């Protein structure tokens, strides 16, 4: 097995057990691929051999966030500072001030929520070239429960001036996003998940920070999604297509800076927007898209997200169903929003 290879075992993540479909993306004909954290870790490890400035700072979860292969390949460039997220982030700020490219990975909740002021003062305000990576994002982490679920992270990251925020949808998108944030000069936040997700970009990907990817075109409405919910959006589009309705699907992997032109075009050309994301209702992709559309081309909008609640322990598929993150909910939202045109 190559040194950088990682594989989250089957059974982790977004497998549906209760429905006729097994995972988000199956209705659309997608096959289950790697977890996005695995794709991040492999890409980081590969980049480590080419970019000697890359270092990692870890708060003792490197085997979960998948920075471990990098650390094993480059032990002198990997710093595990123990369970001390505040210290981890500020150390990264110092390393960046000296020309290093620190990759700081932890669970999304512990990174953004626990060390938010350190991200503000040691990274964002001084515009340090630190690469923040939040793993185990969303409720699909499952059994470990709400204390481990990063569902405020996108809102917190987007609130910080100058921070680029990226939520990739599958393994190929994550690999491309990892390369892009390393190349980008300035602070970034990359959000990855724990469980396996459907492969969307099986034929390659043209990835550019801040530029949405159009996965399907149509004039009935637009579904704008990121992360796990892009596969769900494609399922919904497939279902609606069978009914004769072609919807546009945008993978809005970059939440900040959001692709304003793509949002405005979607609003003007399709007249209705549904936003789907694995995040709390306030402050995530839905808020960003709504602000953009409101300013440029107001149209009816609906939102499929976790809502304004904390979730609970349980199997990932059961959680996604119970908290409304399914293809069926997206289909319903499209029907509602089209009715409001």
């Amino acid at each position, binding site marked *: 097995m190559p040194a950088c290879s990682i594989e989250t075992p089957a059974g982790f993540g977004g497998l549906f057990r209760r429905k006729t479909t097994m995972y988000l993306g199956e209705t659309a004909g997608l096959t289950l691929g790697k977890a996005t954290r695995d794709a991040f870790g492999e890409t980081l490890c590969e980049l480590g051999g080419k970019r000697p400035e890359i*270092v990692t700072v870890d708060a003792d979860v490197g085997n979960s966030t998948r920075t471990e292969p990098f650390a094993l390949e480059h032990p*002198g*460039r990997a*710093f595990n*500072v*123990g369970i*001390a997220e*505040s*210290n981890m*982030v*500020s*150390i*990264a*700020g*110092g*390393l*960046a*001030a*000296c*020309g*290093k490219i*620190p990759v700081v990975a932890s669970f999304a909740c512990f990174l953004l929520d626990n060390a938010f*002021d*350190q991200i*503000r*003062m*040691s990274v964002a*305000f*001084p*515009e340090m070239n630190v690469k923040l990576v939040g793993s185990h994002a969303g409720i699909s982490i499952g059994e470990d429960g709400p204390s481990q679920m990063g569902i405020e992270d996108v809102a917190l990251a987007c609130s910080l001036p100058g921070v680029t925020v990226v939520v990739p949808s599958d393994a190929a998108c994550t690999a491309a996003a990892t390369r892009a944030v390393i190349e980008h000069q300035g602070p970034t936040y990359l959000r990855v998940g724990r469980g396996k997700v459907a492969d969307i970009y099986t034929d390659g990907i043209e990835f550019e920070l801040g530029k949405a990817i159009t996965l399907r075109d149509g004039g009935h409405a637009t579904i704008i999604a990121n992360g796990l919910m892009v596969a769900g959006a494609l399922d919904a589009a497939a279902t609606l297509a069978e009914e004769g309705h072609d919807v546009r699907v945008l993978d809005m992997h970059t939440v900040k800076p959001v692709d304003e032109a793509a949002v405005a075009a979607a609003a003007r050309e399709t007249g209705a927007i549904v936003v789907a994301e694995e995040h709390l209702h306030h402050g995530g992709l839905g808020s960003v898209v709504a602000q953009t559309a409101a300013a440029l081309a107001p149209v009816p909008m609906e939102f499929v997200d976790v809502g304004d609640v904390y979730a609970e322990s349980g199997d990932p598929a059961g959680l996604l169903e119970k908290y409304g993150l399914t293809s069926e909910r997206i289909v319903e939202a499209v029907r509602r929003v089209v009715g409001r045109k």
Partner: protein
Amino acid sequence: MPKALNLAELKAKANEIRKLIIRITTEAGSGHPTSSLSATDVVTALYFGGFMKYDPANPKDPGRDRFILSKGHACPVLYSAMAEAGYFSVDDIMTLRKLGSPWEGHPNMKRLPGIEASTGSLGQGLSIGIGHALAGRMDNAGYHVYVMLGDGESGEGQVWEAFAAADKYKLGNLTAIIDRNGYQQTGATEDVLDLGDLAGKINSFGWHVQTIDGNQMEEVVDALGAARDVKDQPTAIVANTRKGYGILPVLETTGDLNFHGKPLPEDLAEKALAHLSG
């Protein structure tokens, strides 16, 4: 490396810097002069005692020694020392805290070359210093990192995360100086959050620790020299100081020896400057 001043010259330089602290904070109408005055002797020794190698004309020199003021509210002492060192002029720092001035109320590294960290949210400077120290070791750059913290600031948990991590990496190129002036915003540190045997606590984290009178230049110079000679572990200097040192008789007339976070009114500033000149 700028030429090292002798003890008498260092004391005179500290006096000049104290006058600048009074002048710029009174002109600004706000700021933390007493928190700056307690730290003046250490900062003066670092910049003018031959301990730090730096070049005001080349503030990004990768091999420069670093000084990080974690207690960022004391930036009047940093700005004053850097003006004396030639990074910028006294006229420049007279714009302290004014709209448009890069000499902000707390240090902003984006706007001022030579400032190593944007501080003001207490507790983060030592961790940032660890980042600099680790990078210096990776690059064999040979520089030393000095971080000044407050004693009140040491109530922040992150400070102790940093003490533990610096021990793990045996950062002999890192020195923490705790400006133990005995006061924080609302009162004496002993009353607000008593850190007790601070030197013993830091020592128990694996650090080489010295305790000195941080307002006596001889002791400051000796301690910085001893810290520089320790190569295999991080070093700390607990500098027992007096908040407002240099103008204490003037402060006594106000009945407020803490005098935290406010400038001297003009009449008191004149008395303080006269005292420092006397």
